[in-house]
């Protein structure tokens, strides 16, 4: 389904601020699979998702969805295939516009925008029916500006919007991280329900080890712009939170070792 081949991205190349955010990352995602991406801060998880979504064009490498090379496509063109929920609960919807208006835009993601009245009665009924499944009482508030809702409510709606038209790929970037624990649990549960029901292919960045163990069927661990661990099938079935933490520790120790050795070498030989 998704084939990432050797993509790299360096921010501010050639300056003292140079960051190699992605270093020769390759990843294959199967149709209908649900993959979690975990890793330390700044390890390149968001950058990987952004590269797939088209926030920027990678320096090198290829990204294919169903065989179509998309790595040079602008972000808006990729949206035809990709649904997205951001970490910031306010990023996925237009605050001043009503719930219905926001959803109506998502109902035509990647399609033409005809000169016909967008929000009318029958569409609102269809929206209300689907919004009901969130069990947040939002179906009675379709004409309220979406900015008047809580972060959790907005994130639940953004999730609904991103999946209204079945995307070939759903990208979730720590979409529960900015929510209070209760809303986070609710949105996580909703994520699982929707992904299973629609049989979606999804990539989810998360900081919650518990989420990574509970929700998806594959765990990819990133560190310093590279994929350092890939747990799938049986290995994923067996993995528990302590195992993940242990893996983190090992990687970080290896890292410390590498750095101190490098420093020693530098001091002695340069």
């Amino acid at each position, binding site marked *: 389904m998704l084939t990432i081949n050797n993509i790299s991205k360096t921010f501010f190349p050639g300056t003292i601020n140079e960051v190699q955010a992605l270093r020769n990352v390759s990843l294959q995602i199967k149709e209908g699979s649900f993959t979690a991406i975990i890793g330390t801060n700044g390890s390149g998880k968001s950058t990987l998702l952004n590269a797939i*979504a088209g926030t920027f064009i990678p320096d090198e490498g290829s990204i294919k969805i169903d065989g179509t090379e998309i790595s040079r496509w*602008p*972000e*808006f*063109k990729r*949206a*035809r295939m990709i649904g*997205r929920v*951001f970490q910031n609960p*306010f*990023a*996925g*919807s*237009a*605050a*001043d*516009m009503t719930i219905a*208006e*926001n959803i*109506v*835009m*998502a109902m*035509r*993601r*990647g*399609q033409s*925008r*005809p*000169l*016909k*009245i*967008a*929000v009318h009665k029958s569409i609102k009924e269809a929206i209300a029916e689907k919004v009901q499944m969130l069990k947040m009482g939002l179906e009675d508030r379709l004409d309220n500006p979406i900015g008047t809702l809580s972060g959790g409510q907005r994130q639940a709606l953004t999730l609904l919007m*991103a999946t209204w038209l079945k995307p070939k790929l759903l990208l979730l970037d720590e979409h529960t991280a900015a929510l209070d624990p209760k809303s986070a649990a609710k949105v996580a549960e909703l994520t699982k329900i929707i992904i299973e029901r629609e049989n979606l292919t999804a990539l989810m960045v998360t900081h919650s080890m518990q989420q990574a163990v509970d929700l998806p069927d594959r765990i990819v661990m990133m560190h310093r712009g590279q994929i350092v661990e890939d747990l799938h099938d049986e290995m994923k079935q067996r993995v528990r939170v302590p195992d993940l933490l242990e893996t983190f520790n090992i990687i970080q120790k290896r890292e410390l070792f590498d750095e101190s050795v490098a420093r020693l070498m530098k001091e002695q030989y340069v």
Partner: protein
Amino acid sequence: MNLVIGAFTIGLILSLLSLGMLISFKMIKFTDITVDGSITLGASLTAVLIATGWNPWLATLMAFFAGSLAGAITGVLHTKFKIQEILAGILMMTALYSINLRIMGRSNIPLLDTGSVSSQAEQLLTTVSGGADKMNVFGWDVPVADLGALISSLVLSVLLAIVLNYFLKTHFGTVLRATGNNPQMVRAQGVNNNTMVVFSLALSNGLVALSGAILAQYQGFADVQMGIGMMVWGLASIIIGEALVGKSSIGMTITGAILGTILFRLLIAIALRWGLNPNDLKLVTAVFVFLALVAPSMFKNLGKRLQKVRSHANNQ
């Protein structure tokens, strides 16, 4: 009474400018100074075309297209060449100054005894009044020409308001409104937000130029200086309109912009009547817009300070 009718007519004509600015300033949140140049562009182009014998309606339509082109260029300067929005507008406005002089060939073109977009209305009224050049309206004698201009601009303004209201509620219009709110979200819905900005500025400046075209026909001349300060006047009108009717819906916002423009013109007419020096008009408008922009946050701060003082007092 003639003063009032004049203020109403100019208000209605300039309400097209306010509607245009509603799209740039309110919908896509783009502070667009092109307006000062494109209103003059509409006026000068129409004046020249009518003077060379064009049909006034066709000439006015051309003004719309010319204004759209100017707005689109500002949009491309900003989205494609990454020039800050204010600077992009200033560049276009400055360029338009020379272009307008080129179009007219001099700094002022009079339009006397030529047809205008209100000719039909005037003819109709003349027929109704049985050939007299004055009509009795609620006890006042009003020149037929003035009444014709008032009615034409009223019809045009209402028609455009209805079309705009419809347009902004369509699928396309909904995405346009979202562009100013959250461009990231618009991209995630598969729409090129830059294209929306260029389109919106084109539509906005088209309406502004339309306003200029009709203004030139009403006042009987086009002048290269006539656009100076128009953007701030439009802002003032929009602000007044919002205070007047709020922004609870698109229809209300549009109505507000029109009523705001008319009220603003009336206020100006009254102020001038009371002896305000016309040269001070732009200063007064600028100060007004400044106050209107800072007032909401000032009131908030004042409210907070009062609360603090009160809670202090309660604690003691």
